[in-house]
């Protein structure tokens, strides 16, 4: 019973991170109809930025902020310089482009930071918390993970729901031409969307890295999990991405705990294929048919 509970708890924490990463993918998909596979190495690169800051003797939090800010800049620059030319073109070009970017960022990190594992600090204890005499599978950093993802989600909701910029961004995502006719600078909104998504991705990268090891490819499997989570939620829905992330996190935690951690990615593949076959529009889709 206790193992069951702890496995679920671990899954929820991990699920929060997948949710954040899925959210980053969804934000970009909604506005540009591109799945940004390069989101993984983008997050990796910004985590290395944090590591450089921390290794230089500054505090974890300065590194944290540096990573998020560099994520913001990286997302904006990549959209503006690399992605803009293929927006609205044949989708296979965009797919190949994000994968090319994947290789580039990987290579860049390996050249600059080296192709070896480096440990990344955590700002809070990694000892399990104690509740009523028993130690549970949730530590200070886990609490921080959950809280920070919730805060970011809250901020995003507030931005999209209650601000003019948020309204302009949503309009650009749903109908670029009408948005332009209504005076929205659509290009700027897409750049901003990529920048924000990249910040959320960076956060996910920092949370995966905390108290663990980083390496140029440490986020590679996370992009798969984020994608599966986003597809679970329908790829178009931010809320769906969050729920999908949590479901996936818990499911994979059980696979890892009861079957074997080596099969986690395989389980994700199986879940993905099941969703795409049975409910291609995601778990919450009302319309039964959709092209995937």
């Amino acid at each position: 019973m206790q193992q069951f509970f702890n496995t679920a708890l671990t899954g929820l924490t991990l699920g929060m991170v997948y949710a954040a990463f899925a959210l980053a993918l969804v934000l970009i998909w909604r506005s540009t109809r591109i799945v940004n596979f390069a989101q993984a190495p983008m997050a990796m690169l910004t985590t290395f930025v944090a590591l450089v800051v921390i290794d230089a003797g500054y505090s974890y939090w300065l590194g944290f902020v540096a990573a998020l800010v560099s994520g913001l800049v990286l997302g904006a620059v990549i959209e503006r310089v690399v992605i803009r030319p293929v927006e609205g073109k044949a989708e296979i070009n965009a797919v190949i482009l994000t994968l090319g970017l994947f290789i580039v960022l990987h290579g860049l990190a390996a050249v600059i930071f080296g192709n070896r594992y480096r440990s990344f600090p955590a700002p809070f204890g990694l000892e399990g918390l104690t509740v009523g005499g028993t130690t549970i599978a949730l530590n200070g950093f886990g609490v921080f993970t959950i809280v920070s993802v919730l805060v970011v989600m809250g901020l995003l909701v507030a931005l999209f729901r209650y601000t003019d910029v948020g309204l302009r961004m949503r309009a650009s995502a749903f109908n670029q031409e009408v948005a332009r006719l209504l005076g929205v600078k659509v290009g700027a909104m897409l750049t901003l969307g990529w920048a924000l998504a990249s910040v959320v991705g960076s956060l996910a990268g920092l949370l995966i890295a905390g108290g663990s090891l980083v390496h140029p490819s440490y986020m590679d499997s996370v992009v798969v999990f984020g994608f599966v989570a986003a597809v679970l939620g329908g790829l178009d829905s931010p809320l769906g991405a969050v729920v999908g992330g949590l479901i996936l996190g818990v499911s994979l935690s059980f696979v890892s705990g009861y079957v074997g951690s080596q099969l986690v990615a395989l389980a994700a593949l199986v879940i993905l294929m099941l969703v795409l076959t049975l409910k291609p529009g995601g778990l919450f889709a009302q319309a039964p048919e959709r092209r995937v």
Partner: protein
Amino acid sequence: MLTLTSLTAGYGPVTALEDVSLTARKGEITAVLGANGAGKTTLLRTVSGLHRARSGAIDFDGTRLESVAAEKMPRLGLAHVPEGRGVITELTVEENLRLGGLGRGGRVSASDLERVNDLFPILGDRNAALASTLSGGERQMLVIGRALMARPTMLLLDEPSLGLAPRIVAQIFGLVRTLVRDEGLSVLLVEQNARSALSVADHGVVLNLGRVVADAPADELAGDDQLRHAYLGF
């Protein structure tokens, strides 16, 4: 107010507008009529910067528009309601309206919202509903209301009557007439439905295969049997 001079536009090898000249006068409704494929939509899209002219001039109140970006139009006082209405169905009615109000730059004023909701009481009642739940007529009212939120001086309407019941069309055209009379709004109204359009317009221009074939006061056009039979289908 809006003057097009020798406008030519097209898509690759297709020429959709050839040497089109016309004027839409201040405080009037100017109807652009013509069959499907005549080039009416291309005309509006070229004016509002969604499509680039190959040659010719577009003058709006002394400003040359040929190379002005579409997103600048609301600030110049030009509001384009596109073909197929262009409701953003994923947003609520109020969000659609607010979006229109943002077009001028600055914030949305509560009085503008109130005015549009008064003009279209149906919208006022449904402010919080998703726009996807509106009927065709309600959507047309929403997009006209949304255009008005930017306080334009000229309205470009692309086939507002398309797919609507005659009673609703009459209601919408009546409202446009009122706006022109009471607020001095100018309207360029593109329509296939020539009979209804001429009944509300002051002036009419007939397009055929991208060329202007007639340009005259509305009642004159409505009275020209030959023209009516040849180009207007009634």
